[in-house]
């Protein structure tokens, strides 16, 4: 039997059409609501605040589920507002190029002008101008009653295109005008900006500082929802971050998403598996429940890492034709996943991760001997790399230390 045939056959025996787990959540709100679980307390805080046009900050570690949370939150906001027969425009900007307030304003202007272009000549003109830049964007419009939800992701750069004559002066003033127009048309406008984690922390701070006026102008008709890490494993830095945000006084609600419980992750696994089943069930088959708990621990109870491991383990299991992922089969599958993982790393990163593990994690108080092993004079030389590894979940923060992902196998198996 060919590999693919065995793979398909195993999935069929498991009662699944495919391996449903994904590290990143589905962007489609309907699909997302099929797998989303938990965060009730946080939803109860955020929903009324946004409905009233207040600003909400959602923060948490990388992979903790901020994007899933806000997409689900916006979906609920859309449904519940539509059920009341009210109007609202909800804009979600998933990513945008640039690190400045000007870049943020342009990113907001693009979907806003596109939405209003049919009826407002100024919006049409702005949209035409912005289309002259070297950006690409994807847009999904979901209408529910009188509530429009627009999901936008912008790539490329704000470099001017080759055509001459593209001018957009006073971006901020234009944005305010279009927001006013949108407000006239929809009554309320909610703007969500996701993925601020991907920006340099200093740039995020500067952008927020510059955008203070914009964020304060809502007066109950406009609410902003921002997400980002905005927190640090280093208590001192984290506490100062808190104080600084309080001083800005921009957010009515600041919601910190904690790691999920094993039980919540178990439910998420059931939800994902049900998306690939003909008939929903409350089981985690082909996993044994104990194995799901074990994976949750390996994933440090971070949803993105949990989904990633589940996906990889299931693929390995399906390729190897295992009947069930249990105590007997899991160790070998786990080793294979770990081996695959380590092979994808560059030697420099592999070395760094093993040194981090050997020294019990890297911290700001790292000793000279460890730095010597790492081949650097100072830890700050490694900061950009560490932040990028953290973003890729190869390294995680715990009690002020940076520890390698559980996916990293024991060193002796990879000493070569």
């Amino acid at each position, binding site marked *: 039997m060919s590999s693919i045939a065995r793979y398909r056959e195993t999935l069929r025996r498991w009662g699944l059409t495919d391996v449903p787990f994904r590290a990143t959540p589905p962007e489609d709100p309907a699909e997302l609501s099929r797998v989303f679980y938990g965060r009730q307390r946080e939803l109860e805080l955020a929903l009324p605040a946004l409905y009233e046009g207040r600003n909400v900050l959602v923060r948490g570690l990388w992979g903790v589920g901020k994007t899933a949370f806000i997409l689900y939150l916006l979906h609920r906001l859309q449904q519940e507002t539509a059920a009341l027969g009210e109007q609202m425009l909800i804009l979600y900007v998933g990513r945008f190029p640039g690190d400045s307030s000007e870049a943020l304003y342009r990113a907001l202007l693009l979907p806003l002008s596109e939405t209003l272009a049919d009826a407002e000549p100024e919006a049409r003109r702005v949209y035409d101008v912005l289309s002259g830049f070297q950006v690409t964007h994807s847009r999904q419009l979901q209408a529910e009653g009188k509530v429009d939800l627009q999901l936008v992701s912008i790539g490329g750069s704000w470099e001017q295109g080759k055509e001459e004559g593209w001018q957009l002066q006073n971006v901020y003033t234009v944005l305010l005008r279009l927001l006013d127009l949108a407000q006239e048309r929809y009554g309320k406008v909610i703007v969500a900006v996701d993925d601020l984690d991907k920006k340099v922390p200093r740039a995020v*701070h500067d952008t927020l500082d510059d955008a203070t006026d914009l964020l304060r102008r809502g007066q109950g008709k406009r609410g902003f929802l921002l997400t980002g890490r905005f927190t640090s494993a*280093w208590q001192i*830095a984290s506490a*100062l971050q808190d104080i*600084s945000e309080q001083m800005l006084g921009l957010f009515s609600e600041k919601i910190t998403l904690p790691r999920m419980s094993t039980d919540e992750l178990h439910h998420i696994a059931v939800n994902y598996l049900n998306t690939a089943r003909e008939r929903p069930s409350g089981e985690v088959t082909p996993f044994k429940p104990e194995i799901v708990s074990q994976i949750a621990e390996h994933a440090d109870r971070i949803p993105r890492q949990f989904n990633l491991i589940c996906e990889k383990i299931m693929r390995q299991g399906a390729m190897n034709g295992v009947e069930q992922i249990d105590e007997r089969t899991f160790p070998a599958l786990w080793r294979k996943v770990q081996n695959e993982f380590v092979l994808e790393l560059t030697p420099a990163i592999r070395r760094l991760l093993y040194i981090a593990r050997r020294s019990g994690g890297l911290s700001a108080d790292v000793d000279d001997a460890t730095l010597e092993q790492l081949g650097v*004079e*100072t*830890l*700050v030389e490694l900061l950009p790399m560490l932040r990028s590894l953290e973003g890729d979940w190869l390294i995680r923060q715990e009690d002020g230390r940076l520890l390698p992902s559980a996916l990293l196998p024991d060193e002796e198996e990879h000493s070569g």
Partner: protein
Amino acid sequence: MDDPWSKYESGQHWLLAWLDRDHPRYTEALVLRQRLLENLARARAYGDTETSRVERVEITGALDRLALEITGESLSASPLFGPFIRDAQGKITFVKPKPIVIGVSDNTGRIEYLQQKLQTVRNAGDLTAESALLDDLGSACELQGDLQRAVEHYKLAVDIAHKLGDRQSEAIHLQSLGLTFMRLAELKSGQQQSYLSQAADALRQAIEIFDVLGVAPLLRARTRYHLGRCYHQSGRWPEAIALLEQAREVFARHKARPELAHALLELGQLYYQTEDFESAYFYLKDALRLFRRLGDTDGIAVTQEALGSMELQAAHPSEAIVSLQEARQGYVALRRDERIRAVDDLLRMADRARQVAERMGVTP
């Protein structure tokens, strides 16, 4: 009484005079010169400390090794401080014993001596020597605390080097000029911005020339470091960060630890001001580690004061007290009374915060 440090100045002057500008190790000597002059200026201004002495031993050791490798003679050999004749094969012969060294206690005499020499070279129409002497005069005036006159001398030195097309000397004089403006900005708070702006102009021009000439990376990095500091004081933080980061990267690559520690400290303070607290914490911790390794009491004290303030503001008074106490010890050893008073204020606040936290049963 002679200034105990003048012999170092004479030694490095001699070495630079001995080396041709085209010599492949000329810029290396220049970097050491710059470090030595800064060290001496600090020692004269704030008193000599164990840290300064350690750094000076390191710099003079490096100068000595350089002299030994190039000339076959150590700088500590007394005849080396005198004038020499170089024959066609490059062999040198010393024509006089060590010249009279005029110390800090007789700086007025030193200025007079330099002015006499200046007159002589002017009469002879030797512009190269005039430019070098004007730089020396600027340095002597700085030493005397007459910064305005120092500025005048450096400006003349810059003009002459520019006329001669001696770009390297022009940049060196510009750097001296820039650093003097920075000192003026520290002392004359009423005109701080104007002096900082003039300092930035001079340092920026020096960097442009150094970049065109492609001088040693460390020399360029040091000038960037100074311009970064200047921008920091002017409130031009993003530009300051960019320059200091460039300097830090070069210092780290060349394992120039004292410079690296100072760049990290400056950047740590900048990141704190720009509210990038995570970076600030890492940079200050790295600076502290390096200062400890260097045994730099002053560096440790300043860094611990910055960390202590940060911990106090973050409501971690116990950690703040530990950091601030070490800062205080350092300042006591250095007799920096003003800093001791400032740290004492912070310690009192930290102690009160700790008592409140204990009463409330909070243990941050």
